[in-house]
């Protein structure tokens, strides 16, 4: 290797070395793992994970840092949800085959629900009972602040009690009447029964008991389970993870990201695995993954949107291209508490100037090669929906860098060396606004996910566009897990509050449950309100979407956020342009961006 050779090496060897290096680079040396043609067996399948994503969590409860649909998909293959409300059948709805519950009967007053469990068993033979649901419920109740899906006022706050009727029946009561479809799709679908008879302890050697029945005990159990879950190398060997309810168990789980799932022979649900071994392969870049596809080592992968024109070359290799549209929005959250730029971001005119500098139509057409849809608000616009307001559809802030510049100069900013500088501090209508000091430069920094050429191009295009408005836009990149862990909620004085903007949406930033209400994203204190956006009027509208079943509630919410700009709205790309080996079927691509390996089936290979 070049680094260890000595001065005495021969000159032509060096030139050959350089050429070989280039050849290795061209072949995509950074990829995933297998060298054979596909999985090589009808009993197995090779699935490509998104570029630069490394699976790092399987516990059904976790913190925001582990929030990722791919982690969730793996976890749900091991521990089935109580109610699987997803798009795995081609239409978003309750997939009872992959659920532990068989019925959910709401009370007439809408203030409680009685749930019936199926006759199901854990992989160790024990029956799955209401007590396992209660175990999850108690842990989440006692540790709600650490739970990734927590949003104040919503689950578990609005679940006042869980009462066990018998082993297969229990009732959950609410603090008030709710839209039953919203409750089912957005809240009850989060419940993940866990094996209380194995996990209700505080150490590996500890005795299992009813610790979760007290908040103190539940906190200790939560800490124990979360600590154990951080040890990725133990996923395949730790006895803790051997008791599952889903169609698969873990065969191997490498810290480098390669995961092997093995069909659970004891599974007794309706979503039995069709393929015995599932290999989930990590890739550092989309290019590396594409090279693996071309080499035939991946059965179910994806390509860059920019390479759609190469469909024929993949078809010739026995693949079919299937765009995978998501029920999602893509955005870049502002950190409103960032000490340097937070005060600027808090000014609506500044956010308007930023949004006016984003030419979504051109970005969708050129950067995403027509595989993205302009989205101007909080409701997905890629699919027809009665939830989208007219204001959001019509884009309240059309692209115009000239208007963006004027907006800034009208508010006390002056361009100096290509960047706007606040020269008239104060809170008057024609001044920079409260908290913005004189001399503040309008320079933003984004931490963007790496590994995607399309995302790199998107960032370059945004940088260029912002520059025309006098707005500086620095770009730093990091793997998506790193971006997610760095872009958390923070207070101005925190050391972790240095981030200003973050982008983790190469394949869409946020995939909604069936109801695209923004309680977690945009409500004050919402669990995934990364930038700490807060607007009391919006809070009321968000609240109404959860209790009022009319479309008008969603439309008012859509309009308010399209105008108030809690984030930078960006085009929503297809989740991915899938490349699927011919003969692989039995599934629909879930618009909620989960994958369901148990549904995959070889019809020929």
């Amino acid at each position: 290797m070049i680094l260890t050779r000595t001065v005495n090496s021969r000159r032509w060897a060096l030139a050959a070395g350089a050429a070989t290096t280039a050849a290795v680079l061209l072949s995509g040396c950074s990829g995933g793992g297998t060298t054979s043609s596909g999985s090589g067996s009808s009993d197995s399948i090779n699935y490509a994970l998104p570029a630069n994503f490394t699976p790092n969590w399987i516990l059904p409860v976790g913190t925001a840092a582990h929030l990722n649909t791919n982690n969730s998909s793996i976890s749900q293959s091991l521990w089935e949800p109580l109610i699987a409300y997803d798009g795995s059948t081609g239409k978003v709805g309750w997939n009872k085959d992959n659920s532990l519950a068989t019925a959910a009967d709401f009370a007439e007053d809408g203030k409680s629900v009685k749930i019936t469990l199926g006759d199901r068993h854990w992989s160790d033979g024990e029956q799955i009972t209401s007590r396992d649901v209660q175990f999850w419920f108690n842990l989440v109740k006692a540790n709600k602040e650490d739970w990734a899906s927590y949003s104040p006022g919503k689950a578990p706050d609005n679940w006042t009690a869980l009462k066990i009727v018998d082993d297969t029946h229990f009732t959950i009561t609410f603090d008030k009447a709710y839209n039953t479809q919203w409750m089912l799709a957005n809240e009850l679908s989060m419940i993940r029964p866990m094996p209380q008879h194995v996990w209700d302890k505080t150490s590996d050697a500890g005795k299992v008991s009813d610790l979760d029945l007290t908040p103190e005990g539940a906190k200790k159990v939560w800490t124990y389970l979360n600590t154990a879950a951080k040890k990725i190398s133990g996923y395949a060997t730790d006895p803790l993870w051997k008791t599952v309810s889903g169609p698969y168990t873990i065969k191997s789980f490498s810290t480098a990201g390669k995961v092997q799932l093995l069909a659970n022979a004891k599974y007794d649900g309706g979503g039995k695995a069709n393929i015995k071994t599932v290999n989930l392969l990590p890739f550092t870049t989309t290019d590396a993954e594409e090279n693996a596809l071309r080499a035939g080592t991946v059965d179910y992968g994806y390509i860059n949107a920019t390479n759609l024109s190469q469909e024929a070359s993949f078809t010739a290799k026995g693949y079919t291209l299937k765009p995978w549209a998501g029920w999602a929005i893509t955005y870049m959250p502002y950190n409103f508490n960032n000490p340097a730029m937070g005060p600027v971001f808090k000014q609506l005119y500044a956010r308007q100037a930023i949004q006016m500098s984003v030419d979504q139509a051109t970005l969708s057409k050129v950067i995403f090669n027509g595989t993205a849809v302009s989205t101007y608000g909080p409701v997905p616009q890629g699919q027809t929906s009665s939830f989208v307001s007219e204001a959001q559809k019509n884009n309240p802030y059309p692209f115009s860098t000239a208007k963006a510049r004027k907006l800034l100069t009208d508010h006390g900013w002056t361009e100096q060396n290509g960047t706007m500088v606040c020269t008239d501090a104060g809170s008057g209508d024609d001044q920079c606004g409260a908290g913005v000091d004189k001399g503040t430069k309008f320079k933003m920094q984004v931490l963007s996910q790496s590994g995607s050429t399309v995302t790199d191009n998107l960032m370059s295009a945004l940088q260029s566009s912002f520059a025309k408005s006098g707005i500086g836009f620095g770009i730093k990149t990091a793997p998506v897990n790193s971006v997610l862990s760095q872009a958390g909620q923070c207070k101005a004085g925190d050391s972790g509050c240095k981030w200003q903007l973050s982008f983790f949406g190469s394949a869409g930033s946020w995939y909604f449950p069936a109801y695209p209400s923004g309680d977690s994203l945009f409500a004050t204190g919402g669990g995934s309100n990364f930038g700490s956006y807060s607007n009391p009027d919006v809070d009321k509208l968000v609240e109404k979407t959860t209790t009022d079943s009319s479309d008008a509630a969603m439309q008012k919410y859509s309009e308010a956020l399209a105008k108030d700009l809690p984030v930078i709205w960006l085009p929503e790309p297809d989740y991915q342009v899938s490349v699927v080996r011919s003969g692989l079927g039995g599934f629909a691509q879930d618009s909620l961006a989960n994958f369901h390996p148990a549904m995959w089936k070889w019809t020929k290979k």
Partner: protein
Amino acid sequence: MSAVIQPGRVPGKATAPVTASGTRLAVRRFRRNRLAVVGLGVVAFFFLFCFVGPLVYSTDQTHTLLDQVNLAPSGSHWLGTDAVGHDVLGRLMYGGKVSLIVGLAAGVLATVIGTLWGAVAGYAGGWIDAVMMRVVDAGIAIPALFILLVVSAITTPDLTGLIVILGFVSWLVPSRLIRAETLSLKNRDYVLTLRAIGGTHGRAIIRHILPNSVSTIIVAATFQIADAILLVAYVSYLGLGVQPPSTDWGGMLSAGLTAAYSGYWWLIIPPGLAIILVVWAFNAIGDGLRDAFDVRGRG
């Protein structure tokens, strides 16, 4: 004292001290090596191309032009445009600056660190030498690319950071070479005489060991520069190099590969060729310098 102990006047067995006549001989021998001369020409060309070229062929490498993406080479864009509308020829100059600056600076830094480390280890000998060289052995055992990937995962280096990181992972080989040279030089008469009349160890290293190792240092430096340019290409190819809108040849190659199967050859061949040519050129220069300084071949 230095007038008495002039390295050039002390007869040596294997390595001739650098003197005016020695330099002329070295230049003559270097000029006889055609590949080395071509290599020097290639390096000179790329320096002119990257640093003077933008003055002649001016392009906008800051703003994207989304209505001019992936255009084939033409009169207005000699090497076409990339996926965001940048002129590729201009970008080759722009990216080349980064590659050459980082490569040169990191190569020099690695050589300086390696030279000092190797000289001290070789001169001190005994357990100090043993400890210092085991550190080198351990460092060599860890692939540089692995270290770079780990560092890049932890932090996002800027240009200076990249130079420092590359410099600190590349100094191990030169340190071994300089140590070997020092082991030979420290027992020469002029060094022993200096010590006998009370000269310090530091003076022996700085005034005699290092000047007499200069040929080895220069040769090592050229190879280090070539290696550093390749390393920059490696990390940029993996998306961990300089941040947009900056780029370097490795980054350009990485971005261009997305279009490899779309027939956009102008996004791949120019940066790939530039990397190969410059790395080869520095290695050819290194080989030429090694032959030029090698006393055994002098005639």
